[in-house]
């Protein structure tokens, strides 16, 4: 165990994977000489050379399309998209190719690519360096979507993603890249995809969050203890596949649910969570489900602090939910 930041954990996972398997190839913009704009790939060019750490031209559909080709051959490409906000030129490759190759070929051409992308707000990045658009990917059958919230999970989930058989979009909460270091197991540490983590046990209400919203929700939960409210905090970790059993188990216990995400509310990922509860936990629900989310607008710059779910907003939503009839 060593103490690492989340971004260091990402770097460690990449290094581990590349050492363990010569088929792991990295590609992306500025990942070589520059080590990535967030330094996720620091030192890797030096250790593994240009053939395995490829600086690419400025074109995301080229990056993903090339990675798809490598995966069709049997390599394990891990592509960095500099910011999730810049993934859209590759959207066609993701939706039409990456996610559909296995199915459409009757299983002849599985296509295992990992796309790493820093996402989310809180870094004063404005409209195009802050978005949280996981919901644009979670509805695409054939694609896994994973979001760590701690350094240990970042390493464990990334290693699992790289050695998975399916395409994975790996979203990195850049807001906590450096701010919340934690213990990270050495070596081949894996966290299975599709299993949620109970970040905090509680009895009064279930709070669901992922990525950078986990520590914010955690703080809100802690603050409520004093008032005798004991929320359970579930860190989803993997949005696809979703650990539905964990979600239902928690709400069956608490009877109440607060869902937190940075993305706008309307048709956000939280909608699916709420829908599952309306379908499968209706009789357990003692209070309306509540979503604490970004607003249904683009992401602002100067007023970012008012846009993102805060400890305050989450606390109030939890209180309201617990107090509801």
């Amino acid at each position, binding site marked *: 165990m060593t103490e690492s930041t989340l971004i260091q954990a990402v770097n460690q996972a990449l290094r581990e994977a590349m050492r363990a398997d010569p088929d792991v190839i990295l590609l992306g913009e500025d990942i070589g000489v520059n080590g990535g704009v967030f330094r996720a790939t620091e030192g890797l060019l030096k250790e593994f050379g240009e053939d395995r750490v490829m600086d*690419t*031209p400025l074109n995301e559909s080229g990056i993903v399309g*090339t990675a798809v*080709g490598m995966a069709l*051959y049997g390599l394990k490409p891990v592509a960095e998209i500099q910011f999730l906000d810049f993934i859209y030129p590759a959207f066609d490759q993701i939706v039409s190719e990456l996610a559909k190759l*296995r199915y459409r*070929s*009757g299983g002849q051409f599985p296509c295992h690519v990992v796309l790493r992308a820093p996402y989310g707000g809180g870094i004063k990045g404005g409209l195009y360096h802050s978005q949280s658009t996981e919901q644009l990917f979670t509805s695409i059958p054939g694609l896994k979507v994973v979001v760590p919230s701690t350094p240990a999970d970042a390493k464990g989930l990334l290693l699992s993603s790289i050695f998975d058989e399916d395409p994975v979009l790996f979203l990195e909460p850049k807001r906590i890249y450096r701010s919340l270091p934690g213990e990270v197991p050495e070596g081949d540490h894996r966290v299975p995809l599709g299993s949620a983590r109970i970040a905090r046990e509680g009895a009064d209400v279930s709070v669901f969050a992922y990525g950078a919203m986990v520590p914010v929700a955690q703080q809100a939960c802690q603050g409520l203890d004093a008032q005798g409210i004991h929320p359970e905090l579930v860190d989803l970790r993997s949005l696809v596949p*979703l650990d539905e059993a964990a979600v239902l188990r928690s709400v069956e216990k608490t009877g109440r649910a607060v869902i937190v995400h940075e993305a706008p509310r309307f048709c956000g990922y939280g909608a699916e969570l709420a829908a599952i509860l309306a379908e499968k936990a209706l009789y357990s629900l003692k209070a309306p489900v509540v979503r604490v989310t970004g607003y249904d607008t683009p992401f602002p710059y100067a007023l970012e602090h008012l846009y993102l779910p805060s400890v305050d907003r989450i606390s109030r939503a939890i209180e309201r939910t617990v107090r509801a009839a």
Partner: protein
Amino acid sequence: MSVQAVPATSGDSAEGLSVPVRKRLLRLMLLSRALDERGMTLQRQGRIGFYVPVEGQEGAQVGCAAALEPEDWLCPGYRETAVALTRGVPLTLLLSQLYGGRTDLCLGRQMPNHFAFRQYRFVSTSSPIGTQIPHAVGLALAARLKGEKVVAVTFFGDGATSSNDFHSGLNFAGVYKAPVIFFCQNNQWAISLPRSKQTRSETLAQKAEAYGFPGVQVDGNDVGAVYAAVKEARARATAGGGPTLIEAVTYRMGPHTTSDDPRRYRSPEELALWKSRDPVERLKEALEKEHALSEEEFDQLLEGARAEVAAAIQEVEPLPPPDPLTLFDDTLSRRTPQLEEQRAAFLAEAPVSGRKE
């Protein structure tokens, strides 16, 4: 370049192609044409749902595929039936896909002509235009990394040169000197849009200029010329010389697909002109001029091809559709909890839901 432009070469370039080889190519071209004949009819008869004809482009497809090695990777579009035939894919496998039946390797999941044959390094085809182009770059780089002396070849049309992935694929290939052949069949039309309105560039071949590697325009109805151009590009690529863009100038003699009516947008005169350049006729005439082929032999070849196709249809047509439960396979390597539940519900409801078997 106007639509009627006469391609760079004309006649039949026999360069290095012996009579027996050319006869083999002719047979493949006829096989493709025979499949087209029946494919169009089967669709009209409602026996298959859709069909994409190759007619007119057999010279380009057969010439290109014949110049490749079995280890080379192919990233095709939806009109590459003659490429698959040249590769040696059995007619029954092709027809299984057209019928979407139980023996379709793709389990009936795609429209006709969207083939995938892993065993033949013939990558799964999709409908969106151009997406296969960067795949060839990735395959080529992967193969090079593993020390394989092979190329990846991607097939696409004149319309596809406008796609985003044409740009990204060619640019990446140039930067990494990837062993790729970009094989563009300029068949003069992208559905109803003539080549002249697709781009103002004089040739499509010259687009390679933008990426720093050679672009070659070749008479796509001259199977020998295509063969030679591909051989050359392949040799350059495997020797580390990087990619080549080949523009094979040809013509789609039939409709875009069975959903299309070309009379809406092009003239009978144009069609007649290009019929006079039919690649099958040209190869036939050249062989006849050399006294290497008789009318009779040709007819035999054609009838043979037709019989092969008919036999394959007979074999494949009676097969049942895929097992309904295959609906729930292959989205991911394992089903998500939600899909598992959907499958269970499907099974529970099956008797009522009109399952076909």
